[in-house]
Every structure is written in C-alpha cells, then in structure tokens.
C-alpha cells in the first residue's frame, strides 16, 4: 500500500503467531482503540443511566425509555412478536453503529471505515441467520430450503447465501469510507486554497464553514441511515430464515 487509506497503526507488539508468520505481527490499529473506547463509553453510560430507575421517570430515564420502546417496536414490526428475543442485540447493534458512524464529526476515524469491523459484524449476522434457521426448522428442513423451488437452484441459492454477509459488510464500509475520503479531499483542497491565497504559513481559514454542510450529510445523515439499514437488513434476513 503506497499512499493508503487504512487506519493508523498505534502500537506494534512485534509478536507473531507461531506457524502463522506470514500474517505479520499483532498490531493495535486506530480502529481497535476507538472501538474499545466506544464500548467502554456505552457500557459505562448504560450502567450509570439505569442505576436509579424510578417509577416517575426523570428526563434521562424518559429519553432512554423512548429509545428502548422504539427499538422494541421496530423489532416487533419487522421480525414479529415471536422473535422479540433479538431486540437487545439489534438495539446494541444500532447504537454501536450510530455512535461509531457519527465519530467522523469529531475528526476521529470511524471504526466502520475499516473492513474488519463491518465484515466482522456481517459475519455475526451470517451465523445468526443460519443457527436460528436451523434451530427453528431442524437440520433437514433447513437444508431442504436451499433446494427450493427446484433442485437445480441449489448452487444459485448457496451463492446468494454467501453473498449476504459480503454485501452487508461492503455496503456499510463503502458508504462510510466514501464519505471519509471525500471529506479528507475537501479538507485538503480548502487547505491548499488558503495556502495559495495567503501564503503557506497562514491559517487554513477556508476549512471553516463549508465542510460543516458536508459533515451533516456524510456523517450525520448517511451515518445514521446506514446504521439503521444494517440493523434492518440483519432483522429481515434473520426473520426470513426463520419463517
């Protein structure tokens, strides 16, 4: 990789897995660090916010109740009454993705701008689809579902099953990295423009103002929309495999 748009490597342990030397050393990238920080913040916030629950809710508890109610309602509408056990996972997924996509606003590289994160989440969805489908229909019944409506559709169905996590992961990754690259191009161009007009040492004054509009679109709108879509598609795929 020459210029590269991958995440920065923060710490290189220099340790390799014995027998798997070709994979290189263990590295801690920006993605891993930011993901752990998000996880920490979300866990601490959840514990603190639900410590003192009262019958007459305060402001914070009111907001949280609306959020939980909305997620429960969404799960009920999309997956059906009998699959409400998935609501906590879907809520976690939605909140984690929304927080990580919005991080671009604070000039932090979003963890979802790394294929490892998105493909990992998509693989969780893949496992959930097939494990729950098998649980609901039994091994034989589930496997028979691949050979429908006629037997020679089997390879096509298998390919479409494998394409599911790939398209899910690449959709989120492509959207976020596309916005991220456009934002950095715009920032570079505006910095170059102010350097040309006021000399190379001047403050990059054009970098204020205009990027804010693009941030609202690429980070806020696209970020929240993509996290919603990822969650919705996960729900739809799982309930399709189970029904």
């Amino acid at each position, binding site marked *: 990789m020459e210029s590269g748009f991958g995440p920065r490597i923060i710490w290189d342990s220099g340790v390799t897995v014995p027998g798997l030397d070709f994979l290189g050393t263990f590295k801690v990238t920006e993605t891993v660090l930011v993901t752990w920080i998000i996880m920490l913040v979300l866990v601490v916030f959840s514990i603190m916010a639900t410590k003192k629950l009262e019958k007459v809710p305060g402001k914070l508890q009111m907001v949280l109740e609306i959020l939980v109610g909305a997620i429960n309602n969404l799960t009920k509408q999309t997956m059906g009454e009998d699959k409400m056990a998935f609501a906590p996972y879907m809520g976690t997924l939605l909140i984690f993705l929304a927080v990580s996509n919005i991080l671009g606003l604070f000039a932090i590289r979003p963890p979802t701008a790394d294929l490892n994160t998105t493909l990992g989440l998509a693989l969780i969805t893949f496992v959930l689809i097939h494990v729950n489908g098998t649980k609901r229909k039994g091994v034989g019944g589930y496997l028979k579902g691949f050979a429908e409506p006629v037997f020679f559709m089997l390879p096509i169905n298998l390919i479409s099953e494998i394409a599911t996590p790939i398209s899910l992961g690449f959709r989120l990754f492509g959207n976020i990295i596309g916005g991220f690259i456009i934002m950095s191009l715009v920032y570079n161009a505006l910095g170059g423009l102010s350097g040309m007009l006021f000399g190379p040492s001047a403050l990059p004054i054009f970098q204020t103002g205009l990027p804010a509009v693009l941030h609202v679109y690429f980070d806020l709108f696209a970020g929240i929309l993509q996290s*919603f879509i990822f969650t*919705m598609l996960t729900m739809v795929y799982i309930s399709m495999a189970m029904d």
Partner: protein
Amino acid sequence: MEQITGRALILAASAIGAGLAMIAGIGPGIGQGYAAGKGAEGVGRQPEAQGDILRTMLLGAAVAETTGIYALVIALVLLFANPLLNLL
C-alpha cells in the same frame, strides 16, 4: 523520447480503470430514483402509512445501492491498494 516504465503504465491504466468502474454509479441512481418516486406515489395515495412506506423504501434503496458500492470499492482498491503493482 522518454521511456514509459511498466509501473507508470499500470498506474495510468488503473486510474482509467477506476474511472470506468464508477460508471456503475448510473445503476443505483436510476434504481434509487425509481424507489423514491414510487415511495412518493405511495405516500400521496395513503398518507397515514408514511412510516411503513419510508422504512420499506429506505431498505429497497439500500439494496439497490449495493452494486454502486461494489464499484466504489473496486475503484478504491485500484487507486490506493493496487494489487497489480505487486505482479511486476
């Protein structure tokens, strides 16, 4: 005349290829426009079902977008992580 190195040739061809790959952006544009138009029609006919229509439309638009995202990823790979350069 200056010699063209193999590396320069690959980089130039990759840049053209990345541009050509993004022609795929036409497809999602048409598809999402179609979805949005039908969604607007649906809301016009049945304004009380706006929430359901919006959700279904966004889901369909996201699925229609997939091919465009594949093209974007291919273009990014050609520009930033070119696998062809290692073959030299």
